[in-house]
């Protein structure tokens, strides 16, 4: 008698080998048998006409805060993602002293667009250490979590205010090593650091004040555990990216650790850049380094309103400053002033035709409904103003609640993107799930992979796409007993329809604590998602059992590896 049987599906087992017809039986939290199964089970899933694959693993997310009020990391789980890696880019929510909470909240607000009010109303601050944070998120966990610990947070813990003032002393570095060991012992999957992020005062985050010897000392600790080092390089410049990946390669070889950098984009303004970076990746792998570039599947879309500071304006200091630090009244007054309106319009005039292409996607007033769905070029022509002036005027008229979409802003050269996605030294990831919640939806990248590159363009085999986001990811991160459908492995399984799997349209929903909003996408074509042997989500039943685990977890929790026969 099994607990669960998935019948009549096509098993695409994550190895990249061709799919085959078989049933899959689950007993407890493990796959018990794959093949023709005559026995019955308490629960059965009819997978006729569908793909039965390992659960997808998303290696670059920022669900650290969301996991405190939503153990399913909605809607990631419904897209077939069974394991997420939060804590990227030097930011995690532990270890965190009570005195530092508001500083970190400020960083999460600035970098990940998580509202202050969500922390005020959605978070009970009942942890300080990493171990206490893990205990906290384990309650009600429906998705597996392999959390990184953030370098900026470790620096704050050890150095307090000096974390954003100077390099560390030898004694402070030794203390950081000890803190990192405690985090790894408590279940951290590795360490993340950043060379680009800014805090809420628009000054560099603490990790950027670290010198090379500090990073090396922390990498040495990762080497004791064989865990991951993740960085955000200056991804906008290939020379800088190459310099960073060279540094990673040295650490990878010296301490025998896997490393990853994210993101790597196809840049339409510099089409050779990605080839240069990948050539260097190949050279470093040939030397024996592990420097995995993470590449996202989706093109870059940015949605925004004037009510919150948008990434789109970060290149324009006067725009960004008023949006970042102004109250709604101050922002409205600023843009309603004719002199400011003229100056701001002139400041962004040279944007390679960006503004003309923006689409108005949502307004509040009846008067402007006629413009919804139109480009700013069209609206501007109707109003007899420039596109930027039209954007400013409508934003003021709508009390800053006019929402615009800048679609396909980059990483949209399908031929180059798929070449990257298929590259054996590329790690599919960089979804940023749970972050940038007011700029774009970070959900549905796996649906887009199958719908766009596998089904529509036919530039990638289904089996290869599955492998890339399951067993490859598990291998890169050293996650045992997941990522493949094998008897004896943990039963993290996604059942989906290859004919219909996709990401839904982006929509703006209000489901963040404190009446906050975010952009999300529903899943299409995903039928059933199984985590740890339990049905965590299904298209018919919605969110169900919560059997998520923390990976790799504390030593006592880790699965015992069994030698191959």
């Amino acid at each position, binding site marked *: 008698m099994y607990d669960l049987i998935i019948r009549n599906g096509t098993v695409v087992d994550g190895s990249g080998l061709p799919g085959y017809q078989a049933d899959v039986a689950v007993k407890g939290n493990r796959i018990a048998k794959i093949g023709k199964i005559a026995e019955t089970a308490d629960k059965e899933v009819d997978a006729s006409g569908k793909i039965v694959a390992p659960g997808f693993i998303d290696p670059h997310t920022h669900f650290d805060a969301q996991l405190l009020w939503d153990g399913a990391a909605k809607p990631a789980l419904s897209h077939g993602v069974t394991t997420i890696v939060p804590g990227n880019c030097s930011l995690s929510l532990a270890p965190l002293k009570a005195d530092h909470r508001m500083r970190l909240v400020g960083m999460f607000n600035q970098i990940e667009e998580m509202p202050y009010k969500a922390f005020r109303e959605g978070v009970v601050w009942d942890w300080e250490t990493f171990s206490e944070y893990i205990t906290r998120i384990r309650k009600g966990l429906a998705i597996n979590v392999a959390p990184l610990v953030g370098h900026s947070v470790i620096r704050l813990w050890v150095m307090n205010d000096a974390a954003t*003032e*100077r*390099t560390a002393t030898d004694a402070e570095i030794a203390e950081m090593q000890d803190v990192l060991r405690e985090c790894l012992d408590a279940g951290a999957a590795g360490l993340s650091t950043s*060379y680009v992020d800014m805090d809420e*005062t*628009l*000054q*560099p985050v603490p*990790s*950027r*004040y*670290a*010198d*090379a010897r500090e*990073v090396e000392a922390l990498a040495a600790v990762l080497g004791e555990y064989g865990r991951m080092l993740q960085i955000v390089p*200056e991804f906008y*410049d290939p*020379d*800088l990216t*190459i*310099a*960073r990946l*060279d540094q990673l390669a040295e650490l990878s070889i010296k301490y025998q650790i896997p490393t990853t950098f994210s993101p790597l984009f196809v840049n339409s303004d510099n089409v*050779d850049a990605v080839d240069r970076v990948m*050539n*260097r990746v190949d*050279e*470093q792998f*040939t*030397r024996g380094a592990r420097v995995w570039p993470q590449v996202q599947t989706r093109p870059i879309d940015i949605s925004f309103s004037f009510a919150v500071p948008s990434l789109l304006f970060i290149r324009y*200091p006067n725009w960004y400053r008023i949006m970042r630090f102004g109250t709604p009244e101050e922002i409205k007054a600023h843009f309603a002033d004719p002199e400011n309106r003229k100056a701001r319009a002139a400041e962004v005039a040279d944007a390679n035709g960006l503004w003309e292409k923006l689409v108005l996607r949502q307004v509040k007033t009846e008067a402007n409904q006629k413009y919804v769905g139109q480009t700013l070029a069209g609206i501007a022509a109707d109003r007899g103003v420039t596109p930027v002036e039209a954007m400013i005027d409508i934003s003021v008229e709508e009390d800053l609640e006019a929402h615009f979409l800048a679609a396909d802003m980059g990483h949209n050269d399908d031929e180059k993107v798929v070449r990257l996605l298929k590259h054996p030294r590329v790690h599919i990831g960089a979804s940023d799930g749970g972050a940038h919640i007011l700029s774009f939806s970070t959900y549905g990248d796996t649906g887009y992979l199958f719908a766009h590159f596998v089904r529509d363009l036919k530039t990638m085999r289904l089996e290869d796409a599955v492998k890339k986001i399951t067993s490859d990811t598990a291998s890169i991160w050293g996650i045992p007993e997941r990522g493949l459908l094998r008897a004896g492995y943990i039963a993290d399984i996604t059942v989906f329809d290859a004919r219909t799997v996709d990401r839904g349209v982006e929509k703006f929903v209000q489901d963040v604590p404190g009446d906050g909003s975010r952009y999300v996408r529903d899943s299409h074509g995903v039928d059933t998602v199984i985590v740890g042997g339990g049905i965590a989500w299904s298209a018919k039943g919605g969110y169900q059992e919560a059997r998520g685990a923390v990976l790799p977890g504390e030593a006592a929790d880790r699965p015992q590896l069994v030698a191959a026969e």
Partner: protein
Amino acid sequence: MTDANLSVVRKFIRPQSGDSWATIAERELPKLKTEEGVSSLQSWNLHVYMRAPAPEGSPRAGNPILPSDVIFIEPPMAAA
């Protein structure tokens, strides 16, 4: 990077404790006058030079260089 299997890429250094544009210029570009060296470094490292200034009173005020920075000590290489 000195490994023989690696192709040549743009040379860079990591700042030493207390480094400024001038100290890096004097150490890495000794054939140039300090002002010329500083000017060259700044033009090759706009990611640092164009950084928003640190607030007044900050230990970093007046010096945009961070300990974690990559500082290029030569111009971009010509496309292959």
